């Protein structure tokens, strides 16, 4: 994840508290989405950025996940997300992000 974004996320976590924050991902594939989810939950696995070794414990969901999708106005979802849902590997993306959450978030 972009190093500047890591810093921003760390600052926001301090400002609002991890329990009030949710991270929503729009990644195109499973590995990158999982990496982003891991970074905000358990720290930067590449040890390159400000979140290296910092366990924020933030919950990350991909926008494709049913529990997120269900809360969005269907017309808005259709307009902005549905097309990509048809071309990306939704199942593997959703499974990867879910695995990371189960592994690192309480």
């Amino acid at each position: 994840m972009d190093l500047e974004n890591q810093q921003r996320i760390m600052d926001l976590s301090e400002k609002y508290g991890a329990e009030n924050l949710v991270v929503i991902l729009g990644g195109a594939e499973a590995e990158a989405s999982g990496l982003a989810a891991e970074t905000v939950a358990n720290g930067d696995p590449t040890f390159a950025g400000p979140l290296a070794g910092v366990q924020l414990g933030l919950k990350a969901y991909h926008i494709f996940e049913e529990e997120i999708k269900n809360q969005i106005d269907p017309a808005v979802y259709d307009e902005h997300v549905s097309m990509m849902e048809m071309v990306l590997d939704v199942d593997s993306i959703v499974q990867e992000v879910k695995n990371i959450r189960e592994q690192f978030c309480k």
Partner: protein
Amino acid sequence: MLKDKKIIVLGDRDGIPGPAIDECIKSAGGEVVFSTTECFV
């Protein structure tokens, strides 16, 4: 889960970009506090 929460949006240029996710979050009653579109390539 989104309603009345502070939301960080990490969009992807090759997936769903940040502004598209922002619109979805707003429709669900969440407050976007940071939104970006990364390029993971």
